[in-house]
């Protein structure tokens, strides 16, 4: 790990002012510190925002929930209103990492975690050094993307939490020195294109302050199912968040299949026209899949998961 300066932000303004050049925000640190040890991240200054008063979950004006960015993953998963209105989000968070890591990791940090592609963590690749190539495509990509990838990068996003948030139309709220802003989660993660090192639409120096779950997305009937190579404490091979919201709409998002949580708009639209045709909806969604030689199994796995979970959710 390279040497760095450290400062604890006294308030959001202070944090924003300090975050320039090679500085990075530090919250739970579970991913950033990990990557700093490998040299995949090398900030010259850490701005510790962990103790800013951005934690806690409150009611939004529209009746949804506002989740403070510094809320720990544990507190998010245990929150009574999250469990009541968005149970798939609680389940998604509980399916991620370990009890210890969930106690450390924050909601904002979880959204900004980097891919767990082993090539990214240990050597040059387009995410670390633009133009250096994607070794995973010709390499070991057993757990890489089947949707939305490009020859520049085939990595997946590792968050479980974000998959459920994507299904629930979450909105990311942030602050910059120029004022606050909001980005729907659906637009928060940038398409891979030929710039896989540019991962989010967050403005430079922007600090996530909250995630908003809209009331209309509340889905007491919702579920997160994660399939992985061991029963716990492993990243998803494929995961799914699905729910029936109060308006009766089906919401589906997949994890482990793309560089971002994959909202299944095609399948959702298909189900509007063909209610109950889960398998056909899944197949419609996955017709866009482009698996590599080593991860083709994810296509039937994702298809099966969509079908299984939607059947379970049927009233």
């Amino acid at each position: 790990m390279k040497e760095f300066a450290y400062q604890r932000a006294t308030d959001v303004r202070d944090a924003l002012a300090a975050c320039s050049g090679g500085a990075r925000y530090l919250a739970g640190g579970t991913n950033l510190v990990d990557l700093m040890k490998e040299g995949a991240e090398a900030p010259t200054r850490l701005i510790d925002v962990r103790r800013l008063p951005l934690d806690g979950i409150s009611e939004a004006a529209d009746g949804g929930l506002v989740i403070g960015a510094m809320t720990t993953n544990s507190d998010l998963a245990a929150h009574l209103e999250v469990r009541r209105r968005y149970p798939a989000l609680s389940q998604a968070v509980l399916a991620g990492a370990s009890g210890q890591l969930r106690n450390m990791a924050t909601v904002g940090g979880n959204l900004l975690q980097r891919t767990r592609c082993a090539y990214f963590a240990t050597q040059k690749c387009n995410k670390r050094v633009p133009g250096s190539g994607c070794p995973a495509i010709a390499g070991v990509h057993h757990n890489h993307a089947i949707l939305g990838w490009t020859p520049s990068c085939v990595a997946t996003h590792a968050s479980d939490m974000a998959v459920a948030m994507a299904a629930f139309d979450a909105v990311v709220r942030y602050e910059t020195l120029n004022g606050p802003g909001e980005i729907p989660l659906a637009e928060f993660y940038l398409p891979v294109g030929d710039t896989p090192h540019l991962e989010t639409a967050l403005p430079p120096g922007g600090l996530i302050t909250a995630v908003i779950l809209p009331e209309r997305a509340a889905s007491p009937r919702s579920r997160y199912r994660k399939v992985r190579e061991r029963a716990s404490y492993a990243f998803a091979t494929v995961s799914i968040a699905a729910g029936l919201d109060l308006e009766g709409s089906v919401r589906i998002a997949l994890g482990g299949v793309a560089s971002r949580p994959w909202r299944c708009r095609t399948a959702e639209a298909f189900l509007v026209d063909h209610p109950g045709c889960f398998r056909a909806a899944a197949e419609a969604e996955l017709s866009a899949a482009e698996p590599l030689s080593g991860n083709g199994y994810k296509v039937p796995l994702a298809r099966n998961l969509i079908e299984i979970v939607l059947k379970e959710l049927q009233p």
Partner: protein
Amino acid sequence: MTNHHHSEISLHVNGMAHRLDVDNRTTLLDALREDIGHTGPKKGCDHGQCGACTVLLDGRRIVSCLTLAVAAEGADVTTVEGLTGDGELLPLQRAFIRFDGFQCGYCTSGQLCSAIGMLAEHAAGWPSAVTTDVTPDGPAPVLDAAEVRERMSGNLCRCGAYPSIVRAVLETEAGR
């Protein structure tokens, strides 16, 4: 010495106050082990992938290898050395010995601290990934073997003491 790559911090470890001058890069784990001399917490992977370094930070279990010491400034830390308090072994520690909940012992301090944190989380009503119904209106999750296994999965053990650890935790909980 003024060096912006170092920081003066205070830590309360097992009830004792410590003032340290730490390299900002120093993890809480290394500060505990190298600076304070509490080598109970172990470095099994240094990347949050094994749980051997688990300690309680302000009462919650965390992995100390991914916590920067400087960011833990002012915190209350409990390591395995601090579990006994007055020197008497906790029921959980005695159960680990009685049921042989370890072999090499390298993961044990992490398993113990994790179990204590886990039991508090369960007592607070937190669900887990194997809790059938996470909605708060459902029944509170009963701490059975499946719940303990899931909640303790962040603590790897290569000797394979898992069944004995689960038994020690369940017996301790039943005896409360």
